[in-house]
């Protein structure tokens, strides 16, 4: 192989790489838009957004709530840091346009916004409430 052919080979590779770099982000954005995740009510603390750093929560939130679930159910431990109720209270907020809490069926609901994107089916809400405790539209008989 001559020196020129090696050079042209390398050059071609660079050109392809450059073209791909230009094309791919555009294609990706058009094909799979990132989920629009609703904003929570407040930050956990001045230095931390959620009860654990966000990458940790994105990856492992289910482990935290699963662990807490068993503690609450069987031992009556009712701390709020990792409780599903507290997640909902902070993350599910009224739509400013309609003044209503979003339905779990829609992508405006915090949990569903990402779970529909990731195609991960959850059955938490077959039993658990999808709206914060202060929601006034619960059964007309139920108070608090």
């Amino acid at each position: 192989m001559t020196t020129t052919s090696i050079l042209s080979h390398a050059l071609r590779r660079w050109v392809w790489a450059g073209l791909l770099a230009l094309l791919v982000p555009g294609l990706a954005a058009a094909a799979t838009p990132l989920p629009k995740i609703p904003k929570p009510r407040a930050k956990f603390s001045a230095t931390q957004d959620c009860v654990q750093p966000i990458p940790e929560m994105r990856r492992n939130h289910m482990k935290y709530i699963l662990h807490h679930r068993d503690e609450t159910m069987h031992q009556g431990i009712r701390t709020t840091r990792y409780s599903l109720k507290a997640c909902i209270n902070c993350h599910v907020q009224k739509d400013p346009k309609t003044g209503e809490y979003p339905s779990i069926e829609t992508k405006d609901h915090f949990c569903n916004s990402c779970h529909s994107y990731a195609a991960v089916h959850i059955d938490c809400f077959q039993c658990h409430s999808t709206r914060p405790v202060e929601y006034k539209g619960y059964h007309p008989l139920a108070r608090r």
Partner: protein
Amino acid sequence: MEKEADTARRRFLARATGAIAGMVVAPGVILQQVARAKPADEPVTSAQRWGMLIDTNKCQKGCDACVQGCVKENNIRSHYGPATDSQWIRKVEVRDRNSGHSFSLPMMCQHCAHPPCADVCPTGASFRRADGIVLVDRHICIGCRYCMMACPYKARSFVHEDIGPEEHVPWVPRGKGTVEACTLCVQRVDRDGANAVPACAEACAADGHDAFVFGDLNDPNSRISQELAKHGATEIRADLGLDLGIRYRGI
């Protein structure tokens, strides 16, 4: 080996001394635990045993305030009528055939110390909490309903219908395909401790009958223990030896 035994003995001695020092401040002065709600981060313990005393002399025939109170607190709605609706508490009319004397009483989960429902549960979903409250962990309930068969008090219900988002309340998660029963309003007990009043008792008191006394059976100073010590009470089907948390007076 010897060293291990030695540390164990030391640990025991340290704990025992601590415990005695905690109890006795001065000769003749013993600290009493004040009834208060358990901190949220502490597990429930067998130091308490929650129970309820129901005075059937105060319970009115035809009154279902307790049932309505329960329905309200736990947001139990009717779907397709009484054959399949959930029922955590019901009113029962009892009549003595010989004398004709009749009275009514509320019947619900009796929160047995030895619950047959928990014995037969194949998944461990039915269980008795350390403080005596018998619950269903719906996360692991498979809806087989063995517990409903085993319960001598017909206290449990199966959820036949979908419970939609409009019916859910955050303090009582309920869902189709699982078994449920009276929880002694565990959400209130965990929040208020010995001062808790289950919804049925609250509704009964609000109606002016005050037939329920909720409290700690292990605490000799609680109202329930004092009333039990003074007047006694009956366990329904005491012959089964289940050691019930719900006691009745006047039956």
